[in-house]
Structure formats: C-alpha cells, structure tokens
C-alpha cells in the first residue's frame, strides 16, 4: 500500500481526493466531542451550553476553580497513578520472564501453561469479580489498594505480546550465547530482557490506558473518595450535579483526559512502532 501513492490517472486521483476528504471528516468527528469538552469547560457558567459561539471571547477558569473546590482532584489522580504504576510494574516483572520461558525455553508443562494464559485472556473481570470480592472481603481487603492492584498483577495479554516478541528473536542470537557457555539465567537477564524494551513500551501504554480508564472494578471494590480513582470522581461529581453543572463536568473531564492525551502525543511514534514490532500478525 505504502509503496503506491495515488495518482497515475484521473479515477485513482479522484479516489485519492475522496479518501482524503473522508479521512478528514472522520478525523473531525473524532475530535469534535473533545473540542466541545474543552470549549465548554472554559466558558463562563452564565452562557447557555448550546449557544455554540457565545462566550468564546470571555474564557475563564471559574469552572476549574469550582471543581477544585468541590472534588479532591489531586487525591483522585494520586490514587489512579499509584494503581497504574503498581499494576504495570507487576505485569512487566511477572510477564516478561514467563513469556520468555514459554517462547524460548522448552520445559515440561510449557504447553499447558501457554494454553492457561490463552484461556485467561478470555476470562473477563466481570466473571471473576464476585468471587474475588468475596475473597477480599474474607481477608478484610475490600476498599484497599491491594484490591485494586493485585487482581491485575498478571496480564495474559501482556504475556501474549511478550511471547510474540520473543518468538521473533533470531535463533542465532540465543544459540551463540549458549555456545559461549552462558546459563539460561544469564541469557535471560543480560540478553533477552533488555531486548524486550520495545514490546514492554507498547504493552505499558496498553496497560496504563486500561487501568487509567477502569471504572467497573474500583466502583465495586471501593467506597467513597478515599482510594477511589479519578474515573469514580467523575462519576460521583456527575451524580452529585444530577447533570446541571455542565461547565464543571467538562472541566473535570478535561483534567481527567489531559494527562493521557499529552503522554500519547509524546509517545505516539513509539507506540505505533511498538505494536508493529510486537507483530500482532500471528
């Protein structure tokens, strides 16, 4: 595809132009809700929300001030970041060695283990949440960080991604290391794991996006603002407002959306490359 830019003759050129128009219309539809969110968050509270072009000359931060006064935003962000980071560290620390072992070390039980991981890929958290809740309740761990972090400590998707990556490493690399007399242990730690960085980067973004967005699990595992993530904060605030304070809701939404969008803006290339590298091509 990439090898053939449009334009030998009239029909293909027309097709190219139509593709461009279609792509940019689609892009506009993707952006519009977000633009509207930001615009609405910055307009004075007195402007009726559906008057699109009113109040654009008197932008204000009063909605943000109001939200900061009423919602413990920093605490909510702190909770979200803590959970994201802890989950990511666990998932990588646990998943990378496992994937390497499954992909490159033949050992008894590796096939069974592989299929257990694949099976887990198909077990949604909705299926496990009630039992896990009962377990945590028995341990007195409901409404603790442990209840938000541990259930996600192992990502089957991550193991699968890393597995694909390790399968793609050239045989000669590992063979050479083995001929040199390196133990499997040293091969793993000094050669293979450092090489996994692109796959880890790609997965890290998936993982953080997943935890950052999670609403279902914390909604059931936590009570009140204490250890609640920002997603719950948004929901609590929307409920408290019963849909009246649009400016405030848009301000809170903007704040919640911004960190990940900024991170994505910086990491985009790495992210797309990472997926291409991990090769979701079967």
């Amino acid at each position: 595809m990439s090898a053939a830019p449009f334009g030998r003759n009239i029909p293909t050129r027309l097709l190219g132009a139509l593709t461009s128009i279609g792509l940019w219309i689609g892009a506009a539809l993707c952006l519009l809700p977000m633009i509207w969110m930001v615009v609405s968050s910055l307009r004075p509270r007195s402007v009726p929300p559906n008057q699109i072009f009113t109040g654009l000359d008197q932008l204000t931060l009063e909605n943000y001030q109001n939200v900061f006064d009423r919602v413990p935003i920093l605490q909510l962000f702190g909770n979200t970041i803590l959970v994201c980071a802890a989950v990511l560290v666990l998932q990588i620390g646990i998943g990378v060695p496992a994937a390497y072992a499954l992909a490159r070390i033949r050992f008894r039980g590796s096939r069974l283990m592989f299929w257990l991981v694949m099976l887990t890929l198909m077990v949604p958290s909705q299926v496990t949440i009630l039992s896990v809740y009962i377990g945590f309740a028995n341990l007195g761990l409901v409404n603790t960080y442990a209840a938000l972090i541990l259930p996600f400590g192992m990502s089957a998707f991550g193991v699968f991604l890393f597995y694909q990556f390790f399968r793609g490493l050239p045989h000669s690399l590992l063979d050479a290391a083995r001929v040199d007399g390196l133990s499997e242990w040293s091969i793993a730690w000094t050669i293979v794991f450092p090489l996994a960085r692109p796959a880890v980067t790609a997965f890290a973004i998936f993982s953080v996006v997943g935890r950052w967005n999670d609403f279902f699990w914390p909604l059931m595992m936590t009570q009140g603002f204490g250890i609640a993530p920002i997603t719950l904060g948004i929901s609590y605030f929307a409920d408290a407002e019963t849909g009246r304070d649009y400016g405030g809701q848009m301000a809170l939404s903007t704040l919640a959306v911004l960190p990940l969008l900024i991170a994505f803006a910086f990491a985009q290339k790495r992210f797309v490359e990472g997926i291409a590298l991990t090769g979701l091509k079967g």
Partner: protein
Amino acid sequence: MTTSPHSISARPRIVPTVEHPVGRRRMSRTRIGQLFVLPTLLFLLAFAIVPAVANFTLSFFDWSPLRPAFEFVGIDNYVTVLQSKGFISALGNTVIYAIITVPVSIALALLVAVGIMGRLRGAGALKAIYFMPTAAMLVAMAVVWQFILDPRVGLLNEFLSWFGIPPSGWLLNSSTALPSIIAFGIWRQTGYMMILFLAGLAAIPRTVYEAAALDGLHGLKRFWHITWPMLAPTTTFAGIIGTIAAVELFDAPKIMTDGGPAGATTTLSMMIQQEGFTYSSFGTGAVVSLVLFILTLAITAVQWTISRRSPMAGPQ
C-alpha cells in the same frame, strides 16, 4: 484465592551453573522455565482460574456483603435469573451492542488504516487524531457525550435544529438510547482497531504486492485477493478483543443512562453489578457472570472457526 506471591521464595533457588553435562543442562532449563512462569501461574490461578470456577460454585449459593455466609440454594438462582425480564433484555442489549459495534468499528478501522497507509501527507496527524478517542478516558468521554446528547442543551440537537430537525432526548427514549451508546462505542473503538490494522498492513511484505502487480492486480481486486486474506489474523484478533470488550460493556451505559430508560440499555455487566451490589445477591449475579463467560467463549470459538486458523500458535 489466598495464594500469596511470597510463596515463590519457598521454591529452591536455581544456582546458575556454567559447565555441566547435557542431561543436567536440560533439567536446569526446565527448572528455570518453570521458575519464570511460576508467578504468572500463581496470579493466573488466584485471579482468573480459581475465581472463574468459584463463580460457577457461587451460582448455587446465596451470599451477600451484608450477611457474608454461604447458603446452598440449588438451582434457585438460575430459575430466578433466567425467568426475569431484566435478564432477557440485558442479554439482548449486550448481544445487539456487540453484533453492531464490532463489525462496524472493524470495517471503519480497516478503511481508515488502508486510507492512511496509502498517504504520504498527514498520515501521522490522522493516526494521532483517530487514536485520541481511545486514549481519552472513557468515563470522561461518556460524560461529554451525555452532555452532547442532552435534550435541552445538547450540541447534537443544536446542530439538527439548523436543518429544521426537532430536538430529541437521545438517551431518554428507549428506541434511541441503545443506538446512542452503540455510536459512542464505535466512536471510541475505531482508533484502537485502526492501530491494529496499521500494524497488520505494515507486516505484509512488499514483495507480495510486487507479485500482485505483476499479475495485474490493482485497487479493489488487490485488496480483496491480497490485503484482506493476509490481514485475517489481525482481523480475527481485533474481532476477539473487540467482542470481549463489547460483551463486557459497562462504563458507557452506567454513566450515560444508568441502564435506562426502563432497562433499555442495561447490559449483562451492569446486571452483575446490580445483582451483586445493589440487591446484595451474589448468587444471582454469579449466574449472570456465567452467562457472560459462556457468551465470551462461544463468540471466540465461532471467530476461530470462521478464521479457520488460530492466531495463537502454541509453543513448539
């Protein structure tokens, strides 16, 4: 359930040895392999396999956070759930959502990915923009969409009024509430699938296209005979991931409609939450969980059969 990751240390430490006979070396590889997968195995058992099995057991018991004791009730929970109108409607809503959202977002994503791949200018910007709905926090965007679809002050009704179309309560009417949530789902998921397809397209060797050009294959024909079959693993993967996400649908309807009006947007996931935490009935919730699980497995199995080859080949 109670297995703690600390039990890792209970295993004998593997001391890396440099020189040893082949027999011992193989054994040491096995031990290292097993050691490397052990934490994964523990977590997988504690938070996926055991709870999934426990969920099945739970479906024959009564348990409530208010009165945490197990009481065997036989198949009562099944009778209660399967006979309730709420369940039938939740199952229907979930299936309709999945059946529409997944194929539509895959088709759009493929269209966008192919369109972007063929471009030199603006490709980076387009990729970034299409991915933004996925990168933006779902709950926040659901609140934004709820605002846009608001009957009184919503942006959509304002746009439509320019063309003389009367305002509508998109999320408040039972006929438009689910379609609105489907539209939101497509809006959100297309960018994610586009990334998958871009990776899949990039993985198709250029020589394949060169051979196709020699055979006189261009445009749509080339897409149909070369690109589409070669993307099959990606499509299957996107389909499975997308379907599982669709079957789990919770956040958007929870925020935008809370399952209403009159259960028109209640999904299986929402029903699990309602049974378990609103009505404090974990047993009936477990029945709904089980249905959701079977649905996930069935759809995955169907997709694998259709694609004829599993995208996940086991270790050799």
